[in-house]
């Protein structure tokens, strides 16, 4: 019974799903997970300081193009990226725009006026820039996120960055805890409701209720972790400084090419944007 519950939640997202190869066009799947993190990092950092619309917009379009061509995506993910995301950007641009400092905008055509509140084109553009900035950063993170698996990332951390494998593989084993604890939390919540702990509304009652879940959840978690540790020990985990790697995650020339071109592109976009800004 507990098993069925756990597996039901787990079936949806399998963090361990085997890495797959989708051919040379879907090139992102063939890159090392680390290079897909390292390559967009400078762009993500620099975007935090961008204030214009063009820079994040270029990155958004560029990453979208790269994902659509270079990644094997499920139809649902595609719809989210190509339809839902623009809508979210539109909504965010309005809501961020409302919060924009009116002094920054100066004289600007009014779009909507409701009583004392005036929503100007200038405010909307500020909102749009913020929304695009956030979206671009998220998209850049998705390059690695949508095309590498957890185990592969751990393997390359161990193989390329020399992270101790004990740490890496323990973290990987801990992935298994997540659906288990999720299920356990559901049961605890149910049990507490049956005992009449659901009475009381408002934030204070909610905090008290949540605090009540912590003890049983932790007690179960610690016991489970101890058992997992014993089972791993008895299978010689940590016996030697290294272990046999059946999956070698290579760091190839193509990874360097990807990183260097991405950095070059980033530099190009930012210098051009800065130049344009200086002129304008």
């Amino acid at each position: 019974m507990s098993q069925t519950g756990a597996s039901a939640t787990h079936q949806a997202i399998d963090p361990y799903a085997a890495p797959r190869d989708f051919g040379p066009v879907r090139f992102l799947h063939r890159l090392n997970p680390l290079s897909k993190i390292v390559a967009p990092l400078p762009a993500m950092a620099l975007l935090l300081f961008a204030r214009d619309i063009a820079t994040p917009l270029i990155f958004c379009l560029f990453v979208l193009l790269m994902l659509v061509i270079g990644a094997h995506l499920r139809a649902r993910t595609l719809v989210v990226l190509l339809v839902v995301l623009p809508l979210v950007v539109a909504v965010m641009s309005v809501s961020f725009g409302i919060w924009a400092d009116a002094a920054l905008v100066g004289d600007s055509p009014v779009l909507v006026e409701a009583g004392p509140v005036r929503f100007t084109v200038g405010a909307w553009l500020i909102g749009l820039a913020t929304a695009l900035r956030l979206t671009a950063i998220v998209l850049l993170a998705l390059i690695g996120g949508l095309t590498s698996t957890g185990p592969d990332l751990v393997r390359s951390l161990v193989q390329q960055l020399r992270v101790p494998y004990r740490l890496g593989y323990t973290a990987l084993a801990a992935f298994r805890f997540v659906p288990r604890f999720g299920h356990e939390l559901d049961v605890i919540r149910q049990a507490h409701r049956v005992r009449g702990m659901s009475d009381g509304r408002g934030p204070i009652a909610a905090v008290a209720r949540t605090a009540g879940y912590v003890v049983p959840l932790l007690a179960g978690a610690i016991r489970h972790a101890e058992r997992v540790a014993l089972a791993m020990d008895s299978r010689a985990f940590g016996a030697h400084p290294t272990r046999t790697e059946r999956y070698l995650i290579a760091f190839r020339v193509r990874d360097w090419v990807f990183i260097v071109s991405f950095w070059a592109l980033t530099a190009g976009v930012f210098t051009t944007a800065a130049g344009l800004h200086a002129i304008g």
Partner: protein
Amino acid sequence: MTDDRVVDPGSVTENAPAPIVRVQSVSIRHDDRAASTPSDVTFDVAPGEVVLILGPSGCGKSTLALALNGLVPHAVPAELTGTVTVGGMRTADETVARLSERVAMVFQDPDSQMVTGTLLDEVAFGPENLLVDRAEVLARAEESLRQVGLWERRGDNPDLLSGGGRQRLAIACALAMKTPILVLDEPTANLDPAGIEEVYEVLRRLVDTGDHAIVLVEHNLDAAIDLVDRVIVLDAQGRLAMEGPTRQILINRVDELLRLGVWLPVALLAALRLRDAGITLDPLPLTPRELTTSLDAQDALPTLASSAPDSGVSPAHPADTTGDPNLAVRVTALDLDRGRTRILNGIDLAIERGSFVAIVGTNGAGKTTLLQAIAGVIRAPAGRIQVLGVDPAKANARTLARTIGFVFQNPEHQFIKATVAEELAHGPQLQQIPVDAIETRVSNMLDRFGLQELRDEHPFLLSGGQKRRLSVGTALIDGAPLLALDEPTFGQDRARASELLSLLDELNAEGTTVLVVTHDLQLVAEHCSHILVLDSGRVAAFGPTAPVLASDALESAGLRTPPLARAFREVERHPAWRAVTRLSDLPAGATS
């Protein structure tokens, strides 16, 4: 299968039994306990031998198992005196990692033994840690997975396997370590009957190959006993009480074993009961098959007193009793969905007051959902369920608590207060009962469940059995005449399970209606008045225990007939005895 095995120098010496496991004067004291269990235990295991460790709960069987691969004392905070030698290595001098080349372990909970994402990675995990080269890792993985019949599923996530499947995977992981010694600590305690069967099929094949010395800690002797060459029995203090060939110990010293509180195969228990009634089966049977054979060898058996009234086993109970005051629960045309899946499908049910009903079925049959709907834990459509005049779908929490007490599988989940007394007082406080009346109630309940001395203890610090009693106490304190329990014996040893069932028997005798979801059918057979068999969300059978057990309802719902019923059903020469399903059906002797 044996041809391509790497020959281990330790496992081919059939005729020169230099012991591969040597336990000498071993005592183990956990850091937080005063006494040592086990205490001064000595025994050997020969290569290829199958040894079963028996003993009452708390005697240190599992601790002893953990000492065999060095987890005690290296990973578990405990002090070990004496020496354990496995395959020539003294465990005290070696790391657990080194010892894992000699001894492989299988633990009770399959979930806590899984660390990777696919079956293949899982089996490869151990050898990889030992720096076995890649080709050999794959060869070992394939061989081990094939041995447990899971090679075809090597790409799956272990979570997709059933409980029995995952435990078979754990065995494959142990086999991949290529050790001459295999230790299994309660490998079937968390499994349903189908899972137990799967695991023992695998173990039987392993024993037949004779490649491993196997040390087994197991309560379920009905499944294990015919695999075992030798038993080692510990007493309650953890001392070595007896040791010898299985049959010799179990049969010749059966009275001592009973006194020690060791669980015995049900076939043997049945024979003992018959012996007390003057029917001597010789030799005493250990397995259901032997019981059948020795009964058929008897020329005459006395007539059974009064076999249970053959009242109706009905696919659906007659529904002409609306508003009957004798009914505790009535369910009419109940459908229940979770998401898009239909869990319960047209359930009709009438449960009389004072009955003790077991709800059984395979995983996913809807047992827990039905119980939770009856108890109002999950909301059913209104108007479908009546519990003593209350519709749990509409009742508020307070009314519900007065009507039905619900006990979760893990008692810890439902503890919400900092002391035992407050835990019990919580229910009556919600009912807004005067303070002194609450105190009387709490005090009575503490006495009733033997928890008076622990009233100021934190519920989480109680022992397992005490936690279980407290959880039953909290469910009953609002005076609910109906008690519902979800898998209360899951993952527990036999002693604790039977302690709980005796408690339920007492409550039931006092008039409490008891509903219990379980997969332990022999226990059910001994205690319950009625069985409700669910199959894919429908009632497959509902009726008094004996006729349901005697019918083929269990098997057609994918369950297994409990061992005793199986043994008697196959008796040929004494047709009247075929209906026997529980020990209490047998003629009682002077002493029992």
